[in-house]
């Protein structure tokens, strides 16, 4: 069992489906317990990542509006 990692994925400037595919690629390479932090400027990222987390049964820890971008923090608790 590896130590949980925290990874930042910078999708700023890219629009649907950019952020969600970037997140998914990181998710595929992740382990249970890892924290993925997605940075996005696409306003749809909030609802898209929420829907993705619900569907993939992972946990959203935080969604915050930063200066000019959105920061979405997801904890990986389920892997298929």
């Amino acid at each position, binding site marked *: 069992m590896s130590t949980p990692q925290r990874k930042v994925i910078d999708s700023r400037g890219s629009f649907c489906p950019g952020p969600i595919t970037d997140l998914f690629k990181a998710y595929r390479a992740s382990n249970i317990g890892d924290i993925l932090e997605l940075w996005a400027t696409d306003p749809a990222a909030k609802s898209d990542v929420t829907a993705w987390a619900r569907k*993939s049964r992972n946990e959203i820890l935080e969604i915050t509006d930063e200066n000019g971008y959105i920061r979405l923090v997801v904890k990986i608790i389920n892997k298929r």
Partner: protein
Amino acid sequence: MTVTQAEKTEERIQTSSKLLIILSKGTLDMVYPAFMIATTGATMGKDVHMFFTFWGMNSISRKTVGSLKVASVGNPGLPMPNILGMIPGMTALTTSMMKGKIEKAKMPSIPDMVKMAKDLGVKLHACSTTMDVMGVSKDDLVPEVDDIVGAATMLELGEGGQIIFI
């Protein structure tokens, strides 16, 4: 006991795990949405199939995949009088305008979208009748294509799931 909206949504998420996209058009404004929905569906854990028929075949043919265009005629969404679309060179102009906007939004090219879809597990099916009608052979298709099938197979692949026709 009453079923809450959240439970209904949860149930729907559980059951709708299949997605079939039938792509019959070969212009950028049709092909992009098809691949955007397909790749997103794959990230949502859906079992995604794309069926390419008629002009949709252009997006999986080696010769045309990198040079899809936006139609300048019969496209009332363009910011110009429709009749100007008939002027020679207009298709090239509207296409380069759209490509510029796509690049600005950091969206991948269509050949990259095809690769991304494949990488995410989307299955790509070519329509056998279209291949016959249009004189396309297996060697003309991009290597990402999984197989060549007919309408019956396509309908079976989509059975019980969401079906989108473009």
